[in-house]
């Protein structure tokens, strides 16, 4: 967490008062909370009333996806259009609706560079016209960092509810809810230096969806649950901090990423970068570099790099912790074995050039060992 967010969180946590209560302590909490909502709205370029706070990005995505689906189903719309490389917080509620609620799911393929196939998207919109309950396409991909042309896709969608999971994008790349012209977007505090357990669904004014949590109806009657006032206030403080340093920070992170890619590919010439190759502001997030090391096994490399003090990630693990080949990398056309030999490096402005030099110094040995492991196993 950024220091401003820690200060806001601890200060707010010492105040008594439920923001829904009418007594003076409650009023004070409510005032601070609403101020935070306004600050956040300014940063996200939306109206304060469009922000619905939730307890996680996953909850916000579930609210949008199930909420729009159930609303659409009432008028006979049961098609969900999505991309083939969404985050699990989007894929899983969609698959749940497919299995339990009769949803017809259309996954639009993505290109080998990690961008949605717009022709196929257009085709699906035409084919299922009048039947589409919602569209859900991520703003940027969490594993390879490619930024999707959401504004264009949302404009084509017209009146169809269009949700975008922008957890990875908010304050990492340009983000204006108004300009995007989507119906809803998810943002999360912990990705911008705020606390865990606070997120929001930004939902266009005047649009309704079916709530998934029922109770006090605190957030526009669409989301129930006691306000997490300290968390929300800290979210706004963190976002403000990130916003103020936006240009400097993203430029710095992008430079570090370029250095990392150059250094690693120098050491391992047959390695290749996944996703956008141009490292341009409009097409990729500044801090995510996903690299395939042919002939290796990513979880062995992760172990060896961890022992060197370098943290990176592989695809995702199932609930028992078994590494799975990344569905994102498979969606952009990598084979299962290539997907299993890829690592994702995530950078922030607290990383340094010397850390990248350290990675460059050990990567050859790590790759060689991992290759030897595979040879032995076969």
């Amino acid at each position, binding site marked *: 967490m950024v220091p401003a967010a820690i200060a806001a969180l601890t200060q707010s946590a010492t105040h008594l008062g439920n923001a829904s209560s009418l007594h003076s302590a409650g009023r004070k909490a409510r005032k601070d909370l609403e101020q935070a909502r306004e600050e956040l709205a300014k940063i996200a370029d939306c109206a304060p009333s469009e922000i619905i706070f939730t307890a996680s990005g996953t909850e916000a995505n579930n609210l949008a996806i199930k909420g729009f689906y159930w609303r659409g189903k009432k008028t006979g719309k049961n098609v969900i259009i999505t991309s083939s490389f969404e985050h699990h917080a989007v894929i899983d509620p969609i698959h749940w609706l497919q299995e339990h609620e009769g949803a017809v799911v259309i996954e639009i393929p993505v290109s080998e560079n990690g961008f949605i196939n717009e022709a196929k998207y257009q085709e699906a919109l035409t084919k299922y016209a009048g039947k589409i309950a919602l569209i859900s396409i991520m703003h940027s991909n969490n594993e390879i960092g490619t930024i999707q042309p959401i504004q264009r896709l949302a404009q084509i969608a017209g009146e169809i509810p269009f949700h975008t999971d922008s957890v990875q994008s908010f304050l990492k790349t340009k983000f204006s809810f108004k300009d995007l012209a989507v119906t809803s977007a998810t943002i999360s505090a912990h990705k911008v230096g705020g606390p865990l357990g606070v997120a929001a669904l930004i939902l266009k004014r005047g649009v309704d969806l079916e709530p998934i949590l029922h109770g006090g109806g605190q957030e526009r009657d669409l989301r129930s649950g006691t306000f997490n006032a300290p968390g929300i206030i800290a979210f706004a403080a963190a976002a403000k901090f990130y916003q103020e340093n936006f240009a400097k920070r993203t430029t710095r992170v992008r430079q570090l990423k370029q250095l990392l890619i150059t250094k690693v590919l120098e050491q391992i010439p047959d390695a290749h970068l996944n996703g956008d190759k141009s490292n341009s502001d409009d097409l990729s997030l500044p801090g995510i570099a996903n690299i395939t090391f042919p002939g290796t096994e990513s*979880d062995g490399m992760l172990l060896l790099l961890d022992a060197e003090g370098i943290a990176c990630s592989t695809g995702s693990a199932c609930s*028992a912790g*078994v590494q799975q080949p990344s569905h994102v990398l498979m969606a952009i056309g990598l084979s299962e074995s290539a997907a299993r030999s890829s690592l994702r490096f995530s950078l922030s402005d607290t990383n340094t050039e010397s850390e990248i030099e350290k990675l460059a110094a050990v990567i050859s040995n790590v790759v060689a060992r991992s290759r030897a492991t595979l040879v032995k196993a076969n």
Partner: protein
Amino acid sequence: MRLVAAMSGGVDSAVAAARAVDAGHDVVGVHLALSSNPQKYRSGARGCCTIEDSHDARRAADVIGIPFYIWDMANEFHDQVVENFLSEYKSGRTPNPCLRCNEKIKFAAVLDRAKALGFDGVVTGHYAITKDNGTYKTLHRAKDYAKDQSYVLAVLNEEQLQGAHFPLGDTEKIDTRKEAKARGLFVANKPDSHDICFVPHGDNAGWLRDKLGSNVGPIVDQTGEKLGEHRGAYTYTVGQRRGLGLTVPTKSGEPRYVLKIEPKTNTVVVGEHEQLAVKNIVGTPAIFCGPKIDVNKNYKGFAQVRAHGDALPCEYLFDGTSIKVNLDEPLFGLATGQGLVIYDQDRVVGSATITETN
């Protein structure tokens, strides 16, 4: 040394890992995912494969303060252990999958991978003792005879034994639990696993029927007279008395036992207890845990034919391929496919899979 601690999520492997750390080794905890779809085994498996066990292992590693990873060995386990288990039963033999798992997975696939990644060996929570005389390592029974697991480790060859570390060999199980508690490991009171880990609820016959099909066939006596029917010959084990469902009594009124499984004709042959008597056992291939013994020389020692079974006084001989055992006293009810382990007092000489009995 740099060691991989194989952590099942149970108390023994957790304490073993902690002791390896205390001994000054650089230890990394590894949980083996042995099912390709662990969620499916959620309520079924015991001892390994479940989500809860992998979480328990991770938590133990956190408390001990070592890195923790999950290694996906599902394909290796399926090919080497589960398929072998099924094909052995299908051929009328009674395999021990724990022996195969130690031989092919824990001290083969895992040890190989650990070595390739720069580790020196594998630590497990098995109750057995290894001794190193500088030239070779030998395997011995654990101090706690009731927990001794040298039988299921007797399949390790000398090289595998070199990479194997068993820090619990000199400890009583009750003390392992006490130590776990003192170390703040909440798995201290976790029950032991006894069943075969990939067979849900310990229902071996039901699982085999599910995998191999319910193939009805005759139960006959030694004269060939049909006495009843079974639902799959492979669900029976030589020496088995219960679950035969026979209504025709023997002349003598004695109970009947399974004498033989004939997979080709899907027939179960039953008879009286004394007909189960076995004095000679042949096992192959021979694996020696330490120095090889002389060929065609008679030795005196002990044979053990099941985990936690008795050590049976015998004479044994290695003919270059097989181990041949002549028991001092007959043994009743011995199936082919079981592991034959030879002991010289408490030292494991070697092992083989039983191929013939008479």
